[in-house]
C-alpha cells in the first residue's frame, strides 16, 4: 500500500471502529471490536515506517477549499513517532479500560469507547497533518471529542471541570493559535509544513517573536502557565482517559504541535538566529519549576500526577525553543519517554482506585505489600519520569541538558536539574509510603495478612507492560535517535523540498 492510503487508513480505522462499536449491544463484542481496532491501527502505523525511513514524503490532499489552503496529510519522523506512541499505548489502554470500566461499573460505556476512538482518530490526524490548518482542524476535533470523556461522570464536579477544560482550550486555540495561523498565511501565502521552515525571509525578528509566542500559548494543550488549569480540571475523567488522553494523546498533541511548528514553520536556524523563542523558553522554564512545586503540595494522587504532567510538558517546549539538534531530539524523545512513564503512573493510580477506592496519597500507607506489582511499576515509571538510568526518561533529559549546554543556557541547566530533584521529591515518597509504612489498623482488618490483593488482571497486565516499556526505551534510545536524525539532515538545505 502506498503512504497516502496508509495515512488515510489511520484516520478511517478508529472512526469505523468507533461507529461499529456503537451498534453493539453485547459488551463483549463491543470490547473485542475496540481491541481489534486498536491493534489494526497500530499495525498500519508501523506500516508507514518503511516509507518514512526511505525518505518518501508523498502528501495526500483531502480537499482544497481555498487556493493554497488544502487539507492534507504528510508523514515525517516526528509525527510518526507521535502516532506510534499514541496508537501503541491505545491497545494497552483499551485492555486496561475494559478492566477499569467494568471493575467500577461505570455507566455509558459505549459512549465512552466511541469518544475514545474518535479522539484517537483526531490524534492520528494531528500526527500526520500536512499543514497548519489541517493540524488545527484535528486539534479542535480532539478537544471536542475528549470533552464528553472529561464530563463522563455527569455530576456537578465533572461539568465544572468540563467547562474549564473546554473554555481554556477553545479560547487559546481560537484566540491565539488560529490568529497565528492566519498571520503566518498572510505573511507567507502557505501553511504547509516545510523542512527548514516557511517564515525565513518573510518575517522580521520582532514578528517572529510575537508569532512564536502566540503559537506556544495558542497551543493550550501544551499547558504552558498560565493556561495550564484545564489539565488538573480534566482529572475528573475516568482514569483510562487521564492515562491515555491526558498523559499521552491530548497533551502530547499540544507539545507535538509546538515542536512541529518550531521545526517546520519557523525552522530551527531561523529561531536560533532571531531569538524568537526567548519568551516561550523562559515561560516554559518557569512552568516546569513551578508545576513541580505545586505537585509537591497535592495530596490527591491524580492531581499530583497532573501537575507533574504540566511540568514535564514544558521540558518538550524548552527543548523545542532551544532550537538546536540536541534540544529537538531531546524534546521528541521526551514525548515518547514521558508518555510511557506517565501512562504507567496513571495506570497504577487507576489500579489502586479500582482495588481500594483510594484517591489520596496519604491513604496509601502499606499498600505496597498488598499490591506489589502496581507499586513496583509505579517505582519504575517514577524513575523514568525523573530521568535516571536505566529508564527511557534518562535519554530525553540527557539530550535536553546537552541542548541547553549547546545553547549556553547555564541558568536553564540549573533549573532542569532543580526540577529533577523536585521530581524525586514528589514521586518517590509515594512508593516509599506503600512499602515502608505499616498498614493503618482499620485497613489491616479488611485484608488477610500475607496475601496479594491486586486490581483485576486486565488492569495489572498493561501497567506491567508499560513499566517494561520504560526499560525497553532505555535500551532502544539509540534507535530513536537514528530515526529522528533525518529531521535535521533534510532541514539543512533551506528552501522548498517538494
Amino acid at each position, binding site marked *: 500500500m502506498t503512504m497516502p492510503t496508509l495515512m488515510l487508513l489511520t484516520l478511517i480505522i478508529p472512526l469505523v471502529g468507533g461507529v461499529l462499536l456503537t451498534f453493539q449491544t453485547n459488551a463483549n463484542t463491543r470490547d473485542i471490536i475496540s481491541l481489534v481496532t486498536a491493534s489494526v491501527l497500530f499495525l498500519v502505523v508501523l506500516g508507514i515506517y518503511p516509507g518514512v525511513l526511505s525518505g518518501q514524503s508523498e502528501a495526500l490532499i483531502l*480537499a482544497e*477549499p*481555498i487556493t493554497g*489552503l488544502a*487539507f492534507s496529510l504528510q508523514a515525517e519522523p516526528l509525527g510518526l513517532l507521535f502516532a506510534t506512541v499514541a496508537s501503541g499505548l491505545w491497545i494497552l489502554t483499551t485492555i486496561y479500560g475494559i478492566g477499569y470500566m467494568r471493575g467500577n461499573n461505570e455507566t455509558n460505556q459505549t459512549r465512552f469507547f466511541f469518544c475514545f476512538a474518535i479522539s484517537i482518530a483526531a490524534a492520528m490526524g494531528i500526527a500526520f497533518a500536512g499543514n497548519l*490548518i489541517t493540524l*488545527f*482542524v484535528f486539534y*479542535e476535533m480532539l478537544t471536542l471529542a475528549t470533552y464528553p470523556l472529561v*464530563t463522563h461522570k455527569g455530576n456537578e464536579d465533572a*461539568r465544572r471541570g*468540563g*467547562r474549564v477544560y*473546554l473554555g481554556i482550550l*477553545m*479560547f487559546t486555540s*481560537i*484566540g491565539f493559535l*488560529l*490568529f497565528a495561523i*492566519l*498571520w503566518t*498565511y*498572510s505573511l507567507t501565502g502557505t501553511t504547509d509544513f516545510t523542512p527548514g521552515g516557511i517564515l525565513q525571509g518573510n518575517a522580521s525578528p520582532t514578528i517572529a517573536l510575537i508569532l512564536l509566542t502566540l503559537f506556544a500559548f495558542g497551543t493550550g494543550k501544551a499547558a504552558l502557565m498560565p493556561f495550564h488549569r484545564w489539565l488538573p480540571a480534566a482529572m475528573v475523567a475516568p482514569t483510562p482517559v487521564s492515562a491515555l488522553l491526558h498523559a499521552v494523546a491530548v497533551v502530547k498533541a499540544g507539545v507535538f504541535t509546538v515542536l512541529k511548528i518550531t521545526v517546520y514553520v519557523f525552522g530551527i536556524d531561523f529561531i536560533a538566529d532571531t531569538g524568537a523563542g526567548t519568551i516561550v523558553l523562559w515561560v516554559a522554564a518557569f512552568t516546569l519549576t513551578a508545576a513541580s512545586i505545586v505537585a509537591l503540595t497535592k495530596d490527591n494522587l491524580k492531581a499530583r500526577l497532573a501537575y507533574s504532567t504540566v511540568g514535564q510538558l514544558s521540558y518538550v517546549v524548552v527543548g523545542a525553543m532551544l532550537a538546536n539538534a540536541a534540544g529537538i531530539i531531546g524534546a521528541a524523545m521526551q514525548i515518547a519517554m514521558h508518555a510511557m512513564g506517565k501512562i504507567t503512573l496513571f495506570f497504577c493510580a487507576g489500579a489502586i482506585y479500582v482495588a481500594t477506592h483510594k484517591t489520596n496519597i496519604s491513604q496509601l500507607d502499606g499498600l505496597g505489600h498488598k499490591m506489589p506489582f502496581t507499586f513496583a511499576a509505579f517505582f519504575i515509571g517514577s524513575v523514568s519520569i525523573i530521568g535516571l538510568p536505566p529508564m527511557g526518561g534518562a535519554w530525553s533529559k540527557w539530550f535536553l541538558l546537552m541542548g541547553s549546554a549547546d545553547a549556553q543556557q547555564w541558568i536553564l541547566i540549573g533549573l532542569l536539574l532543580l526540577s529533577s530533584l523536585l521530581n524525586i521529591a514528589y514521586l518517590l515518597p509515594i512508593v516509599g509510603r506503600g512499602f515502608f509504612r505499616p498498614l493503618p489498623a482499620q485497613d489491616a482488618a479488611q485484608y488477610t495478612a500475607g496475601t496479594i490483593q491486586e486490581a483485576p488482571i486486565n488492569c495489572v497486565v498493561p501497567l506491567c507492560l508499560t513499566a517494561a516499556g520504560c526499560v525497553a526505551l532505555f535500551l532502544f534510545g539509540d534507535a530513536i535517535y537514528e530515526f529522528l536524525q533525518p529531521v535535521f539532515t533534510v532541514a539543512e538545505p533551506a528552501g522548498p523540498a517538494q
Partner: protein
Amino acid sequence: MISTQLPAIVLLLTLLSAPICSMIRNGDHAWKLAMFAVWLSVAAAFALMSQVWGGTTLSYHMGGWPPPWGIEVRVDELSALVLILITLFGALVISALRESLRTVMRSHRHSLYYATFLLCMAALIGITITGDAFNVFVFLEISSLSTYALIARGRDRRALVAAFRYLIMGTIGATFILIAIGFMYMVTGTLNMADLAQRLPEHADNKVIQASFAFFTVGIALKVAVFPLHYWLPNAYTYAPKATTAFLAATATKVALYVMIRFIFDVYGVEFSFSQMRLDMLLIPLSIAGILLGSMTAIFQSDVKRLLAWSSVAQLGYMVLGVALLNTSGLTSAVTHMFNHAMMKAGLFLALAAMIYRVGSSNLRDLAGIGRTMPLTTAAFVILGAGLVGVPLTAGFISKWYLVSAALDKGWLPLAALLIISSLMALAYIAKIVDAAYFQPVPDQHQNVRDVPVSILTPVWVFALLTIYFGIDTRMTAGVAERVAQALLSVAS
C-alpha cells in the same frame, strides 16, 4: 429555446403563482403549488448559474425592447449566486412551512400566507436580476410590503408593533433610495443601470449626484441594518412567526446588501464611492461597531431568537466590513459570507422553529436539556452554530478566513485581532445554547418532548449538511465570489 428565456422565467414562476395561490381556498393545495413554483425556480437559478459560469453576463430585454428604453434584465455571476440563495433557501423554508404553520394559524389562512411568501420571494428575485434602477425600488417596495405582512402574522401581539416599526424604518429607507434614484435620473436622464454607470463619471463633481449618493447610502444602510440603523431588526426577527424568520434572515438583508454592492461598485463606481466620497471611512468604523455591539448584546440574551437576531447584526457587520475594506479578499469574503450566512442563519432559525414547534418557547430556560429530548434537531443546530462561529470545515470558516486575510493584507493587525475576538464572542453565545441544550436537566413540563416530524427535520438537516459541504467545496461560493470581486474592483482601476 427555453434557456434564453430563463431570466424572465425565474421571476415569473413565483410572481405568477402568488396570485393563484391566494385564490386557492385549500391550504394544502396552495402549498403544493408554491412548492412546485419555488423548486422550479431553484432549477432555473442553477441553470442560470451554469450559463454565466466563468464570468459571462446575460442581458435579457423584457418584451423585446432594447435598453436603455426598455427594461433590461441582467444576470451575472453575482446575481446568479444571490438568485440561488433566495430560491434555494426560500424553497427549503417553504418545504418546512406546511407542518410548521399548522400550529400557528387556521388552515384556510395558509393560502394567503403562501401567496405573501411567494410575492416576497418574487420581489427579491426581481431586485436581483433587474438592470433598471427604478425597478430596484419597485421590487424593494413589494418585498418590504409583503415582509410587513409576513411579520404581522405572528401570534404574539408584539408582532404588530414590530411590523409597524419595520414599516416606518423600511419606508424611510425606501424613500431615501427613491430620492437617490430620482436625483440620478434628473442629472443623467436614464434609469438603466449600465447606462447610468457610463454617464455618471462625468457628473462626479455634481452636487446632486453627491447628494444622491448620500441618500442612497443612508437608505440602503437602513435596509442592510448597518449599525446604528439596525434597531428594527432584532424585534422584527423575534416576533415574526417561526419559520418566516428563517426566510427573512436568509434573504431580506442579503438582497439589500446585494443592492448596496451593485450600486456602489457598478452604478456609482469604485472611484466615485471610495476615492471621492470616502465611503470606507464611514462604513469601516460603523461595521466594526456593529460587529462588537451585536456580538456583545447576543451574549447577554436569554431568548434564543433574539440572540440569533443580534448575531445577525454582527454578521452583517462582517459583510459590510468586507465591502468597505476594498480589496479582493474583503469583497470575496463579503459575497461568500452573504451566501454562507444566509444558509447558516436560515438553518438555525428553522431548527429553532422546530424546537419552538415542540416546546412552545425560545427561552433558554425552556430549551434546557433539549439535546436529549430532540437529539436530531439539536445536533443540526450545533453544526450550524459551529458554522456561525467559523469552525474549520464549515462554510463560516471560509468567509471568516477571507475577511481576516483582507485585514491582514491591509496590514491592519488590530482589526484582525478584533475579528478573532468577535469569533470568540460568537463561540460564547453559541456555547451558551449548547450548554443549556446538553448539560442542563430537562424541565418537568417538557419531559415528553420528541423530535419534530420528518417534513421539518429534513430541511433543517439539508441546511446543516450544506454548511459542511460549502466548507469543503467552495467553487460555487468563494470561487464565484473571487471572480466577482476581481471584476467589481477592476472596473475602476
